[in-house]
């Protein structure tokens, strides 16, 4: 566009005025084109964020919406609340557990699907299935699998494999987070596998062939060729999924309702509890704002790591 415009300006004396007019016209056109998207973003993202920020300075009854200005008191309550810090600690554990398992298993599954196996297309389609299942359905199925009285997991462990004489308490305080991580792994594994697989399919076969000629082992080929090749995708997935996992509500809340004894109460679950059980929207908004800051910090750390990784790969 610029080149064309520059060429056109050489044609006549009134060119600068016309050029300015065109530029104005282009700018106007561009603004008009992006305006709907901007308006939607303002309506569904910026405005609610401003309302939430404003609400965090009030005590607001969830039912009656009666408001009392409390200044920074909600923030002080949040930062002094042991329940909030417990929830934050659980959020970190949940996010780390979910991300680690999803990343390792996702890469593993992608490597398998990349092989020339029989019925590969069918298996690839099948792999996507858990991601298509709504969270509530996935949780209901897994609750049944992990049931202490009628669940198939305990039946396998006790009656088939004879590994234990008593049922495993999958929802006991010591096990429940692991159970939730397993449920999440089942649901989000396809997401990882498909993205990594897409990247793997762009890997030039000559690289592996050359390495084989040089006598590289399977592990060496993976470590020095495959892994660096998929790393940019893995890092992007890590950034996105970490933010989503930190904000995840349904897959954490639905299996155990935040319990037992609060052991699955992560920050989003805590926000719901404050808003709808304690009935204070303002306090809940303050927790959400603190969480927003934490996620922003986390995201920046990730992008810093991403840039470093990218530089080292280049």
């Amino acid at each position, binding site marked *: 566009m610029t080149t064309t415009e520059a060429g056109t300006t050489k044609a006549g004396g009134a060119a600068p005025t016309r050029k300015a007019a065109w530029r104005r016209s282009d700018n106007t056109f561009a603004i008009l084109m992006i305006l709907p998207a901007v308006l939607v973003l303002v309506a569904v993202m910026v405005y609610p964020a401003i309302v939430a920020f404003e609400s965090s300075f009030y005590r607001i009854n969830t039912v009656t919406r009666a408001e009392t200005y409390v200044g920074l008191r909600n923030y002080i309550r949040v930062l002094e609340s042991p329940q909030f810090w417990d929830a934050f600690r659980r959020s970190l554990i949940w996010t780390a557990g979910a991300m680690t398992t999803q990343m390792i298993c996702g890469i593993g599954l992608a490597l398998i699907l990349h092989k020339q196996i029989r019925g590969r297309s069918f298996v690839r389609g099948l792999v996507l299935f858990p991601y298509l299942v709504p969270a509530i359905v996935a949780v209901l199925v897994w609750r049944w699998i992990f*049931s202490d*009285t009628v669940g198939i997991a305990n039946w396998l462990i006790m009656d088939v494999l004879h590994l234990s004489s008593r049922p495993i308490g999958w929802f006991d305080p010591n096990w429940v987070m692991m159970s939730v991580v397993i449920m999440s792994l089942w649901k989000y594994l396809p997401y990882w596998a498909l993205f990594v697989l897409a990247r793997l399919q762009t890997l030039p076969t000559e690289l592996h062939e050359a390495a084989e000629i040089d006598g590289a082992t399977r592990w060496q080929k993976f470590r020095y060729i495959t892994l660096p090749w998929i790393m940019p995708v893995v890092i992007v997935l890590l950034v996105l999924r970490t933010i989503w996992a930190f904000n995840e509500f349904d897959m954490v809340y639905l299996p155990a309702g935040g319990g037992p004894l609060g052991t699955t109460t992560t920050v989003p679950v805590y926000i719901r509890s404050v808003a709808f059980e304690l009935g204070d929207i303002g306090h809940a908004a303050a927790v959400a704002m603190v969480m927003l800051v934490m996620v922003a910090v986390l995201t920046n750390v990730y992008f810093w790591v991403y840039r470093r990784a990218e530089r080292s790969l280049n």
Partner: protein
Amino acid sequence: MSAITAGWARQAASALTLAIGLTCAATADAQQKKIVPFLTAESSPESVAQLLALIKEFEAANPGIGIELQLTSNDNRASRIINSVAVGDELGIFEIERRLVPDFTAAGYLLPLDSIVDNIGIENFIPGSLLYWPWDGHLYQFTSDLSAGTLYWRKDLFEAAGLGEPDSFERLLEASEKLDGQNGVSGNAFESSNRGNVQRFVTFLWQNCGDFYNRDGTLAFDRPGARQAVEDYAALNAFAPSGNHSWGSLDAINSFVAGRVAMALFPGRLGFQVANNAPEIARVTGNREARVARGGQGPRVVYGAVTSYAIGSTVRHPEEAKMFLEFLFSGDRLLNYAMAVPGHIAPAIKDVQARLLEQDTPYIRDYRAWVETILEATTYFNAEAQNMGSITEDCEFKKSLVPMPWASRVMVGEPVTSRMFQEIALIDRPVEEAYAAAVDAHRVAMEEWKAENAWFTPPDPNWVPPGMQ
């Protein structure tokens, strides 16, 4: 303008005209009809089909009225209702949750519904089923149906172990101890989960002469009877399946259906499900009034619940909304609704209850005694959030219609008693210590709520609600 463009413009203009015409026609039709929104969480295809048929029947009989069925989920219902009142949206007929009633009524969000009861006749209702608002004597929630818990037990297992009918705490405990661990069966299904604990525990609490609060809004959970109930329930809970602290609403039923528990204290849905899904277990199952205090003593009272509907004060056509509510939950319509899960849905109107027992269906034929026991229990049921302080200090059951205004602080999410029993079972917290913490939690929640809600003053202690004179 090219021919193609002109053709396109003509087609667009025609489509626009048609759309405007249709919209105008629909608007005109809507303007002629008085539309009443009806929000429900009934989501099964059978229930929705039944509701649509009833709406059609009502609209045919009342051509000027239209009922707009709005479906929601149980999880979203409360937030949807709260959001509607917050933004001043029209709120028509909706099932109201117990915890919302005090705030909604106090804030003036609900329409008085006394006239519906006047039309049906208050003498036709089960005493205590209508929840009049004690602060002004009006009715803001119309009761469609009731449910009450009864005790189901495996007669075959009891007989094989030489155990007598479980009619007292001692017999419940003896059976739980003896049967637990036999062939993969747990002693009982008395759960400590956030969802089900309160409903199971309150029968123990009340029959032991305890309560959460008195009807004047003072603490009652510190009574010796409450302490006894906690100790007894914790002793029984030790013989429930190990994961009972995280059970959902269907786990107790599934466990009984699968033959994995020897006893369960549950509303009528359990019996209906067992009869339908495991007839071989239903044939060896007994059902009786729950007597759970020591020696089978204590007042005759069990856990029950009231399902009730309200109409928002912002409704555009209040009289039409009341007409539909009355139509839907009286006469044959109420009977058909109750027959969806007989015994679990117990009609609040006496003659409909009587007619329910006369229905010729396999379940009523084979398990009529169960349904009779449950229907009888609806005459002495109590609900923790709706009937605050029904158990007097003299250990009498005098049904209170004072709702517990701070119920959402102690009964919702992670109820105080659920946490108490979970701490006892999962981290071996001593009963005395866990109980003391629960007493404090109940006290603090009450005091905090009162500090934030100046409108609350104890209702007149001599007030006798209509229908209970």
